[in-house]
Structures are given as C-alpha cells and as structure tokens.
C-alpha cells in the first residue's frame, strides 16, 4: 500500500509545538525502518514514517498546533478536595 513518506533523519523540533527537546522512545523491531519520538513540552508522539502532515513542522496543520500558552491554560479535570477524616 502506502510507501514510506518521511525520511528517517533525526527530527530537531516537535511538529506540533516546535519544541526542540525530544525523546526517542522506541525504534522499530526490524532495524532501521522507523523510530518513535515524544516531545517533552506538549507530549506529542509520532513515528518517523508517518505522512509529513504529522511529522514536519511546516506541513503540520495550524489548527492542530499547540503553544506554551495552550498547554499552560489547558482545562483541567478537577481534583476533588481531600476528605476530612
């Protein structure tokens, strides 16, 4: 079916938030096919063989991009108060 659409060059920025601190969290069991990266800032994860619209900052859709403010102001599932025992 689809062929590999991204190079396996080591990414230097997160496609979603542009942050440069990335963790390589997994490599393909068959050596050299793909790696999985994880952004330390927005926690986005991607595989290097995914289409450019998911892996390249300049091709990543604006509507899915995330900023530091988006992360800082993200709505939180409320933490309830501790019970008074």
């Amino acid at each position, binding site marked *: *079916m689809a062929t*590999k659409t991204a190079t396996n060059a080591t990414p230097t920025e997160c496609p979603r938030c542009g942050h440069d601190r990335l963790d390589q969290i997994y490599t393909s069991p068959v050596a050299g096919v793909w790696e*999985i990266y994880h952004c330390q800032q927005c926690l986005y994860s991607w595989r290097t063989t995914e289409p450019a619209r998911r892996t390249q900052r300049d091709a990543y859709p604006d509507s*899915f991009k995330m900023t530091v403010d988006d992360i800082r102001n993200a709505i939180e599932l409320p*933490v309830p108060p501790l019970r008074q025992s």
Partner: protein
Amino acid sequence: MAYDDLRSFLDALDKEGQLLRITEEVMPEPDVAAAANAVSRLGEAAPALYFDNVAGFNNARIAMNVHGSWANHALALGLPTTTGTKEQVAEFINRWAKFPVKPEWRDNPLWAQNSVEGDDINLFDILPLVRLNDGDGGFYIDKAGIVSKDPDDPENSGKQNFGIYRIEVKGPRKLAILPVPVHDIALHLRKAEERGEDLPIAITLGNDPVLSIVAATPMEYDQNEYELAGALRGAPAPIAKAPLTGLPVPWGSEIVIEGVIEGRKREVEGPFGEFTGHYSGGRNLPVIRIDKISYRTDPIFEHLYLGVPWTEIDYLVAANTCVPLYEQLKKDFPEVQAVNAMYTHGLAIIVSTKNRYGGFAKAVGMRVLTTPHGLGYAAIVIVVDENVDPFNLPQVMWALSTKMNPSDDLIVVPHLSLVELAPQSDNPGTGAKLIIDATTPARPDNRGNYGNQVHDLPEMGEWLTKLQQLAKH
C-alpha cells in the same frame, strides 16, 4: 454460541466470510487506520480486518472493525449475519430479561502465558500501536475494557466497573485516561482522590466480543457488566483474578495491563478524534502508571477506528445504548414502545410511546433526560406516537412533519449536564437540551386539526406476504 476469547470469534468471522486478511505489507500509518476508515464505507455487512504484515514489526497482529457492522454485531450475539437492526435490539431486550447471570471463576487464564513488571515494561514491545486520525496527540488504546472498584465499597461486585475509556500512550509504562464525569470510572477516581489514594485498575485488551459490548453499555452504577455478559452470551462470563491487583478480569483477554491511576495528578492529553466526529482534548487529565503486563504469546491487538459516522464505534454503542434506556423508561412508563438511541451514543434519542393523556409525551421526554445515560447524553429527544417506528427514520420525519407544532412542542432546557465531548455544549460539561414532542395531541390537549389518521388497510399484510413471495420467483 458463546465465545470465550477474541480468537474464537475471529475464527467465526472468518468462517462467515466476515474477516478480511490484509496479507500485503502495510505501513503502520496511515494504512491501518485508513483501511479501517474505508471498511466502514462498505455498509452494514462490512467485514473485520486482520493485519499481520506491518512494516517495521516482526510479529504484529492487529484486528480492526471487529464490531463494525450489523453483520458482525449479529455474529457477536450468536445471530445470523442477516439479522436486521431492529431484530437485534429486540433480541438484546429478550436476553436482558435474564440479567444477572453470575460470572464463572476459571483457572489458567489465557493471558498468564507471559508477563513483565516494573521498569522492564515497554508497552511498545507488546502492542503494535498505530495513530488513528491526523490530529491525535499520540497513539491511543480505545477498545480496552478497564476494570476498577469503588474505593469506598471494594467488596461490592455490583459497584465494580468494566468500561471502555480512551487511553493515550505517553511512554513505555505511562498512559493518560479520560474519565468522563458521568461514567462510573470517574466516580471511582473521585472517591480515590478524595481519600488521597491511587486507583488500581486493570486494562484488558482483545476480549470476547460480548464483553466489549457490555463494556460500552450505559448500565446503572451498581449493575455488574460481567453479569450482563452472562445474560447476553447465554453462558456465564469466564473471569480470573489479575495477579497484581486482584481485580476480576476476563479469563480470555489477549493482554492484561495492571497499574494505577495516580491520584491527584494531571498532565496534558490529546487531542483525540472522538465518537462525535470531532476532536477533543488538549486538556490536563489523569495519568496511569503501568506496573505489570500479562499477555498471551503472540497477542492480537484489537483496535478501533472512529471518525465521521458511521464507523465501528457507532455499531459498538448502538443496540446497547437503546436497551438500558428502554428498560429504565419502561419501568416508569409502561406505555413506552421502543427506544432508538443509536445516534452518536444517544446524543439524539427517539422514543415511541402511547399517549396516556395530554402532556404525557413531554413527560416521557423529560424522563429520558434524568436516566443515568441521559444525564450526560440525550441532547435531543424526539417523542413519537406508538404507531411510529423510531428505527424507521422516514416515519420519524413524517411525525416531525405533521405532528409537531413549534410553538408548543419544542422544550429547551438550558444548562443541563452534557458530556464534555459534545461539541455543541455551552461550556465543556453543560449544555441546553431539546425535547421534541412529535406525538398526536391527546385529550385534553386539543391543538391541531388531526381528524382521522390514515391507517394501513386491514388486507395490506396479506398482500405484503403475497407480493414478497411473488418477488422471490
């Protein structure tokens, strides 16, 4: 007819021509999700998909769309693949009458073949994870039955929960979870956090198909999902004790992930393309720490694509959303005839009822809003006459076209609770709800000019049978 594990059901699908094996090499993305997106376009008899040649993996096995058609749903219930939608809902109601059927504790669970613990855990070693939709924030697990107990009443098996919730994979042994407030796991987590504790959980993947159906059924808080599975299967659901948490998990799961939702901790999650056909997320949600994984040798990863309706999720939350609502309404209002809550997990619900007296249909509509599921869903409730089939949308449109007067028959109730995922809500968590009374006014409500309604001719049924027989030849 009962299947004790996913593999025996995949065999049954295969025998019925309902399993399509994709043998050519595919890329993890976008192929697996794109194929699952496409298969739902094949219609109400679409097959399940099975991938075992995924680039970069040595041994990946991925099953998609296992419940993703009425034909597959019928097989899961042990019915012929040609069984109609309405008949499947009727059979679901018949079997519900046998609830509860106690589960059966069984030794030597299938998932006990292999295990890994603590820092040796890397979920990516076990699951061939794939992204589903473009804007998803990562790799998701979205068809696992998650087991948890009520921290205030852990011995009460009725209050335990077995439900499907979306889970994002954030690292080798770290996950995120969305506990929607109206769902049972959110009540468990809330209690644990009030107590200052973590919530132990077991995430079970690749199950008997009926278990996935009950895990997606909006049962009442103190009703046990395994006991409904027994009624639907026609045989007790086999369960076993998870080795680390002691939680009751399916005996036949492919994979059992144990750990805790870490109390009082939040971290950014998502977005994720949801059952509403819209993305939700980018919120701070609870975090799961994995402590142990048990799994069958060469496990099959059962996964679910969801997107623009209808996809597999819509079949998985169709009949099982109608039936508990029907049971709950019928208990209070025996006049209720049928409930169709198949649209977007019951964000829209159609109820047919006899009209006891003027205003009665509106009361039925309001009761829908106060059912356990209605608290979070039921954004639109349409009430139709007893002789209108809520599963027949042309008939429903006829009722809307002729029975409903906008000046009196639309009731908007503002600021009710509504799942955060509903994109039309005022604020995440609340929204207005609409009741449409599309029944013929009953005395003393004398509005309209209804006179006599046309009915099918008494001889029509006989002729229908005759014409059907003639058409066969």
